[in-house]
């Protein structure tokens, strides 16, 4: 294509004929013949690189599209040659070489190098001729890529374009064609074109539904779903899409029905289509049952989906081959069949909700290697760590304080018997000593790292002028995440202009309100983790920030006050802490879920958490009592304790509150009553200090303690006391 080549005589008729023959053989699937033609063509014409490319393409098809790696190499070489030759004609080559670029994009797409594929596709898009099959192919590729990278708005824009073009195209095709082609040709073209448009229409609807689903605009989705069902009838893709739609609307039974009606047994299988429909089927059933709150079924289905996926991968030989062979030996389309990371993500979330945080942690750690720019996933990892480090979670989840929570151990027997009281804070504080926090174990230190990542991945809040205080500390962290996400292909949809949606692959992007909820949750977890790590300043900082969030749910507001107060206590700012512990601060304990969510049956709020305003207030009063104790205001503390105890079911009184009762009795000198409280593991009516008789006389060291009677009624205490 250099200057002189233009002057060289044009392409000879012989060459043209050979080129046509080669193409015809290729379309007929006779790749050997096509290759033969191409080879002799190459002897005549050494200039045209397209001969070499078509040769590579024919070879590729000859192997059943299984030599993706090789084709990629050849295309790369060709591209480098072409570029060195035509660089001086500033970019004019792009149209000439569009097929070369397109093929490269296709390969990137199948190798999941989505951002590379997108950048090529977008370049091609600038030179597209309308109403051409090739133009459509490029557009559809781009749409697919946008959807894969969760950029539904871009996809939708392109789809409306495509739609408009196909409508315009069909009308224009009708009148204008007669000018330059014979009537016969035009008729054939017209028929072909009409068929193409029909096929395209169905695909456009299909893609539109996917885009609307990602944008969570169910109204628009409903319209498109109708068109899909009208055009593409009862194909598996349509039924899955409709099921997805019903799932999002909360019609779970309908969703299951639709999935069941798709005949997955007849699906050609992953080797042909590159998609393992059976695996998708089980996965989606898992999603539905998760949403219904049937977590055990959910986990069952996800495990099944994972098995199916492993089976598919084994069938494809994926994973067993080394890295070098990774892209050869299996058809190119099957390169996309592996859905392991999506499945692991789902599995992890399900395990977390079922109360198996360590298993969940393992799944999510694997998933985060691919989806590392998903802030919600980082939060989930932190939640796993928190759940895994929550002491005696079984009892807590049942809402029953265990004796174990109060007494650490009993030492000695007889008159040497001693009770060692348990310190809740040491139960709560878990340092994993001697381990680097960067090594992923489900520790609180690792939770802190996860939460920092999560916060950094969220866009800055507009209302927050003050920059986050953890900025300097975690800048190195942010650097690595940032650069990492750029390399990532699964997450290239990051950083949209406008930032209306925050990408959260493999889930649909997050809307603004979801982002704000997420931020609140991250801040609450951050404060909690900082407290557990003894980082009180940080805890206070996070709790304050949490309390300043504009749309804070009642329950997180409550937690924000609790955490702030505890941090302030540790910072020796008792009065500030007491201000946070005003029970009036709790007005509701909803989790800030959209009303539609709450209506759905089967959704339950997590246990181990105050479910009513009064129990939340009681918790606050218990803590207020502790705060008063520190100021030696024991009477106030006692009042708080008893007021709070009257607000909750006696069985639900937390161990900390019972210990507070013990503490108050000990301060009061009522050792025996304190012991009674411990033994019965419940709060007991206190005795006025004045009535307390002298239990211990003088110093006799051997005096056995007062006999402890098995108590039947509270009134018997006074007797014990008086004895």
């Amino acid at each position, binding site marked *: 294509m250099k200057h002189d080549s233009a002057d060289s005589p044009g392409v000879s008729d012989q060459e043209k004929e050979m080129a046509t023959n080669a193409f015809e053989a*290729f379309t007929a699937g006779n790749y050997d013949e096509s290759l033969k033609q191409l080879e002799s063509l190459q002897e005549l014409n050494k200039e*045209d690189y*397209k001969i070499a490319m078509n040769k590579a393409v*024919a070879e590729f*098809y000859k192997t059943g*599209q299984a030599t993706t790696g090789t084709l990629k190499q050849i295309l790369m070489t060709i591209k480098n040659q072409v570029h060195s030759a035509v660089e001086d004609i500033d*970019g004019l080559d792009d*149209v000439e070489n569009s*097929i070369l670029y397109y*093929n490269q994009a296709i*390969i990137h797409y199948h190798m999941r190098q989505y951002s590379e594929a997108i950048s090529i596709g977008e370049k091609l898009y600038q030179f597209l001729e309308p*109403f051409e099959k090739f133009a459509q192919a490029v557009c*559809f*590729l781009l749409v*697919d890529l946008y959807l894969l990278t969760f950029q539904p708005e871009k996809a939708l824009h392109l789809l409306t374009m495509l739609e408009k*073009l196909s409508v*315009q195209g069909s009308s224009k095709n009708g009148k204008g064609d007669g000018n330059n082609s014979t009537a016969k040709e035009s008729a054939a073209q017209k028929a072909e074109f009409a068929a193409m448009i029909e096929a395209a229409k169905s695909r456009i609807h299909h*893609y539109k539904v996917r885009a609307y689903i990602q944008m*969570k605009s169910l109204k628009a989705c409903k319209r498109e779903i109708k068109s899909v069902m009208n055009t593409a009838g009862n194909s598996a*893709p349509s039924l899955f899409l409709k099921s*997805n739609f019903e*799932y999002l609307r909360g019609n779970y039974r309908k969703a299951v029905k639709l999935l069941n009606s798709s005949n997955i047994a007849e699906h050609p299988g992953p080797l042909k289509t590159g998609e393992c429909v059976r695996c998708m089927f089980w*996965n*989606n059933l898992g999603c539905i049952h998760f*949403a219904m709150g049937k977590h055990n079924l959910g986990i069952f289905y996800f495990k099944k989906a994972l098995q199916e996926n492993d089976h598919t991968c084994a069938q494809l030989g994926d994973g067993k081959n080394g890295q070098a062979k990774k892209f050869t030996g299996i058809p190119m389309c099957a390169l996309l069949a592996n859905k392991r990371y999506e499945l692991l993500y789902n599995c992890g*979330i399900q395990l977390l909700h079922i109360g198996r945080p360590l298993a969940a942690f393992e799944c999510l750690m694997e998933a985060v290697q691919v989806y590392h720019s998903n802030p*919600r996933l980082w939060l989930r990892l932190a939640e796993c760590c*928190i759940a895994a480090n*929550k002491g005696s979670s079984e009892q807590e989840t049942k809402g029953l304080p265990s004796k174990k929570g109060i007494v650490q151990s009993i*030492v000695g027997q007889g008159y*040497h018997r*001693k*009770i*060692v*009281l348990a*310190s*809740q804070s*040491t139960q709560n504080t878990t340092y994993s000593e001697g381990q680097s926090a960067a090594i992923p174990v489900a520790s609180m230190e690792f939770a802190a790292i996860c939460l920092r990542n999560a916060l950094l991945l969220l866009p800055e809040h507009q209302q927050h002028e003050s920059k986050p205080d953890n900025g300097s500390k975690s800048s190195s962290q942010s650097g690595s995440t940032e650069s990492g996400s750029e390399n990532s292909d699964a997450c290239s949809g990051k950083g949209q202009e406008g930032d209306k949606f925050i990408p959260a692959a493999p*889930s649909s992007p997050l809307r603004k309100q979801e982002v704000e*909820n997420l931020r609140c949750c991250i801040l609450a977890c951050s404060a*909690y983790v900082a407290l557990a790590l003894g980082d009180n300043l940080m805890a206070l900082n996070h709790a304050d920030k949490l309390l300043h969030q504009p749309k804070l749910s009642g329950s997180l507001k409550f937690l924000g006050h609790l955490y702030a107060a505890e941090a302030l206590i*540790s910072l*020796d700012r008792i009065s500030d802490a007491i201000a946070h512990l005003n029970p009036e601060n709790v007005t509701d304990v909803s989790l800030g*879920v*959209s009303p539609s*969510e709450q209506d759905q049956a089967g959704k339950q709020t997590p246990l181990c958490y*105050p479910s009513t305003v009064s129990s939340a207030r009681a*918790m606050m009063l218990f803590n207020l009592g*502790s705060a008063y*104790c520190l100021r030696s205001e024991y009477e106030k503390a006692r009042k708080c304790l008893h007021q709070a105890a009257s607000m909750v079911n006696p069985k639900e009184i937390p161990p900390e509150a019972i210990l*507070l009762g*013990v503490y108050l009795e*000990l301060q009061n*000198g009522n050792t025996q009553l304190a012991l009674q409280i411990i033994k019965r593991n419940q709060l007991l009516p206190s005795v006025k200090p004045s009535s307390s008789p*002298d239990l211990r*006389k003088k110093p006799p060291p*051997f005096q*056995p*303690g007062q006999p*402890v009677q098995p108590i039947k009624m509270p009134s018997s205490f006074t007797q014990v006391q008086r004895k």
Partner: protein
Amino acid sequence: MTLAPKELSNLLGIISEDACGNTFESLSNAFHHCFGKAEHFRVGSVLVMLLQQPDLLPSSPQRLTALYLLWEMYRTEPLAANPFAAVFAHLLNPSASGEEQEKPLSGFLPPITHPEKFFLSQLMLAPPRELFKKTPRQVSCMDVSSAPQAVDISGLQLALAERQSELPTQSKASFPSLLSDPDPDSSNSGFDSSVANQIIESLVTGPRPPLESHFRPEFIRPAPPLLVCEDELAWLNPCEPEHRVQWDRSMCVHNGTGVEIKRIMAKAFKSPLSAPQQTQLLGELEKDPKLVYHVGLTPAKLPDLVENNPLVAIEILLKLMSSSQITEYFSVLVNMDMSLHSMEVVNRLTTAVDLPPEFIHLYISNCISTCEQIKDKYMQVSVCNLSADKKSGVWCWYRLYLRNPRIG
């Protein structure tokens, strides 16, 4: 803070009942033989714990030994600097001695006997050397009724209060977490030192021994609930994509014209074309309607073409009307610098096709702002004349608007 079992047995040996026959001096020597300065605090903590648990340290001579050692360890430093000075102050507190039966707080030190108190008071003052020549057993049997009862410890108390005020409130509010709970049913079989020693061992040795833990009002800290959100799980949809590697049909089909046209176009971006070149270009474009997409025009290059070859630009734009990029071309056209050529192009376009109204509005406002800035009167007039030629209503409006304030 824990003691190794070996260290503990050494310590227990020194404060054992049997050792109470030795003089304080020899006890002190034995102690320093076993423990270096670094261990003193840990040993002292164990001693305090034993003093707090009378069942483990039952006899008065043993308590005397323990008190003596607590004092002895830090005797070279001022009394208030002794970390266990609070123990002394508490035991000697006159108010406690007055109504000691009032409030026996658990975990606090049980009151001590008069000889013990006397001994301790002696330690607080400058103790006579002979005192240490005695044995704990002797001291415990001393008749101290004649000795002065109280020693003034207010200075010590003051110093302690000052030191404590620097401690966090939470630390000050702590009790030891060890609570005596003697079993009333057990027979009072007397003290068995081997049993006691076993218990002591389990209290002070090993990782996180009970000795270390403390008991204070604690906060309930519920863990945050799991984030609740809709649509988090990844739903998988089959979509049967049809993206395939394609054969390049342009292989060996392009003839010279394509390249020639591109060369002409490349020139057209830089300078006006000659008449034959222009004819050739327009002719080829007319012949092959798809050629226009291959000539190398991009929206970015449009302004150059408009300035140098407005006629070519018009023809090409008209052919590009159905292109997906046409809006890009329009927006470039609207935003390019105002000139006769660009106006000419827009003018021709408006007469040939229906332009989007927002495009025309944008263009007009652009024209006006440019017109106002033009200094050259001649230029202004010609611009306005050109606009005066317009026939469409929009352009008339434009003319009126322009004429009245400017040239009128």
